[in-house]
C-alpha cells in the first residue's frame, strides 16, 4: 500500500511542477496589467495608444511613435532575413550533401547562442559607423537596427523552416523526380508549398523575436521618440522605451512604461496565437487527406 501512496504523492508533486509555469504566466500578467492600468485608466487608452508625443517630464505619454518604430525595424529585419534564411534552410534540408549539412548545423546553433548584447555591440562598433559614412546622418537608424535584428532572427527562421522542409514525406520527392522534375522544380513546386505552414510559423517566431529584442536595438537605433522620416532616421521601439526610462521613472511615468509592456505582451500573444492557428489548421488538412 505504501507504494501506491508514494506514487500518488509523487504524481501530485509532478503535477504542481507542470502547472508552475501557468501560475507564473498569470502572475506576470497580473503584475504587468495592474501596474500598467493607471496609464490606460487615468491617462486614457486611446490617448496613450495613438498619442504622437512622448514627453515624460510634462506627463505626456503617447506610444504611437514607438509602435511605428517597432513595426519598421521588425519588417525591415524580416525583409532582409526571410530570403536569406529560406534559401539557407532549403540549402541545408534539400540541396547540400551530408558533410556540409553537418558543418552548417553548429554554425546556425552558434549564431543562435551569441548573446544579444554582443550583437548590439557589434552593430554599434561596425554597422553604425558604416551606415554613417555611406548614407550620412548619425548612422543610428532603422537600417542599422534592421540589419542587426535580421542576423539575430536568421537562426530561428532557418531551424524552424528546415525542420518543416525535412518533415515533407519522401514520397513527394520520389514522385516528382519520377516524373522527370529537376531538384529545383521539385523544391519550388512540391516541397516548399508542402512545408509552407511550418515556414510561416518560423517567420512569425522570428518576427516575435525581433519585436521583443531590447538592448541590441537600443545600441544601434538612436532611440528618438518620433515617427521616423526615412529608413536612415533614428527610431525608438516599444522595448527600448521601457529599458531606457525604467531606471528613473516614478508615478504615472512608471505606470506608462508598464503599459508599454502590456502592449508588447498583447502583440506577442497575438503572434503566438497565429502560429498555433496555422499549425492546427495544417494538421487538420493532412488529417482529412488520410481518409
Amino acid at each position: 500500500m505504501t507504494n501506491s501512496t508514494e506514487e500518488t504523492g509523487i504524481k501530485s508533486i509532478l503535477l504542481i511542477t507542470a502547472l508552475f509555469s501557468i501560475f507564473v504566466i498569470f502572475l506576470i500578467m497580473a503584475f504587468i496589467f495592474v501596474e500598467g492600468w493607471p496609464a490606460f485608466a487615468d491617462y486614457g487608452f486611446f490617448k496613450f495608444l495613438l498619442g504622437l508625443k512622448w514627453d515624460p517630464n510634462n506627463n505626456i505619454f503617447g506610444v504611437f511613435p514607438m509602435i511605428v518604430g517597432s513595426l519598421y525595424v521588425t519588417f525591415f529585419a524580416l525583409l532582409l532575413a526571410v530570403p536569406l534564411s529560406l534559401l539557407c534552410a532549403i540549402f541545408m534540408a534539400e540541396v547540400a550533401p551530408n558533410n556540409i549539412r553537418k558543418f552548417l548545423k553548429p554554425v546556425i546553433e552558434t549564431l543562435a547562442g551569441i548573446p544579444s548584447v554582443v550583437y548590439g555591440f557589434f552593430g554599434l562598433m561596425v554597422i553604425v559607423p558604416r551606415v554613417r559614412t555611406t548614407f550620412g546622418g548619425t548612422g543610428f537608424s532603422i537600417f542599422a537596427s534592421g540589419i542587426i535584428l535580421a542576423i539575430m532572427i536568421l537562426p530561428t527562421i532557418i531551424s524552424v523552416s528546415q525542420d518543416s522542409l525535412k518533415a515533407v514525406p519522401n514520397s513527394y520527392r520520389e514522385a516528382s523526380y519520377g516524373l522527370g522534375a529537376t531538384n529545383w522544380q521539385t523544391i519550388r513546386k512540391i516541397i516548399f508549398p508542402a512545408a509552407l505552414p511550418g515556414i510561416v510559423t518560423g517567420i512569425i517566431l522570428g518576427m516575435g523575436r525581433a519585436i521583443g529584442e531590447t538592448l541590441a536595438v537600443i545600441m544601434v537605433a538612436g532611440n528618438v521618440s518620433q515617427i521616423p522620416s526615412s529608413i536612415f532616421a533614428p527610431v525608438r521601439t516599444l522595448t527600448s522605451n521601457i529599458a531606457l526610462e525604467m531606471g528613473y521613472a516614478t508615478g504615472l511615468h512608471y505606470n506608462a512604461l508598464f503599459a508599454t509592456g502590456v502592449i508588447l505582451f498583447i502583440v506577442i500573444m497575438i503572434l503566438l496565437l497565429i502560429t498555433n492557428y496555422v499549425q492546427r489548421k495544417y494538421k487538420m488538412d493532412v488529417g482529412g487527406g488520410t481518409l
Partner: protein
Amino acid sequence: MNSVKEEIEKSGSKMSSKTSQKIMNVVFVFSGILTLLILIVIIGYIVIKGLPSLNLNFLLSNPIDSGKSGGIFPMIISSLYVTAIAVVIATPLAVGAAIYISEYSSKGKIVDIVRFGAQILASIPSIIFGLFGLQFFVISLNLGYSVLSGGLVLAIMALPTIFQVAEVTLSSVPSLYKEGSYGLGATKWQTVVGVILPAAIPGIITGVILGLTRAISEAAAVMFCVGSAITTPIFITDPGRPLPLHLYVLATEGVSMQNAFGTAAVLVVIVLAITFITNYLVNRYQEKMMGER
C-alpha cells in the same frame, strides 16, 4: 492533338529547367556561405578586438573608475551567481513538469495547456520579465536589488527552454524500455528513475545547457533587478552586475570601448566553450551507452 513531345518543343520554354537548376545551385551555395561569413565576421571581430585585454589580470581584478580600466572579476562572479541560481531552480521544475507530461498525464487538455504555457513563457520578451522581476521579486517580495532577484527572473526564462527539450527527449525514450521495467513489476516512479531518466539524461543535459546559455547571455531581464553594482557579490542578497549588463553599460555610456571589447570576448568565449564542451560530452555519453548495449 499534339503529343507531349511536340508540345514541349512548341512552347520552347524561356529558360531550360537545367539552366535554372544551375543558377539556383549557385544561389543556394551562396546563401550557405553568407550565413557562415556572418558568424565568422562577428565572432572574429569581437575576439580579435578583445584579445589584447584578455589576460588573468583583466579576469581577476576589480574595475577601476566604474569600468574605465581594471578588470571584470565582480561581473564574472555576478554572472556565476545569477546563472547558478537560475539553473538550480529551473531544472527540477522543468524536468518535473516534463516527466509529468510525458509519463503521468493521460494525453489531453492538461498536456496542451502546459505545452502552450511553456510556449508563452518562451515567447515573452525579456524586457517584460525585467518589469515583472522588478515589481514582483524586488518590490513585492522585498528581495531587493540582488543577484537572487536576478537569478529568479532568469530561472523563469530558462524554465520553458529546459522543459521543451526535456519533454521531447523523455517522450522519445523507446516504450520497449518502459515495458521491460513494468514487466518486472516496477512502479511508475521506479521506472522513471531507473530506466527513463538515465536514457534521457543526454537530452536533458542539452536542455539545461540551452537554458543556462539563455540565462548567462541575458541583460535586459536582469537590468532592473540586480542593482548594477560593480562590487563583488558575496551573499545572494547582494547586488551585482552580470557580464552582459556590464557590456551594455560600458558600450552605451561610452565608458571604455577597450574594456567593452574584452567583456564581449569573454562572454562569447564562455558561451562557445559551454556549447562545444556539452556537445562533446553528450556525444561521448551516447556512444558509451551504445557501446555497452
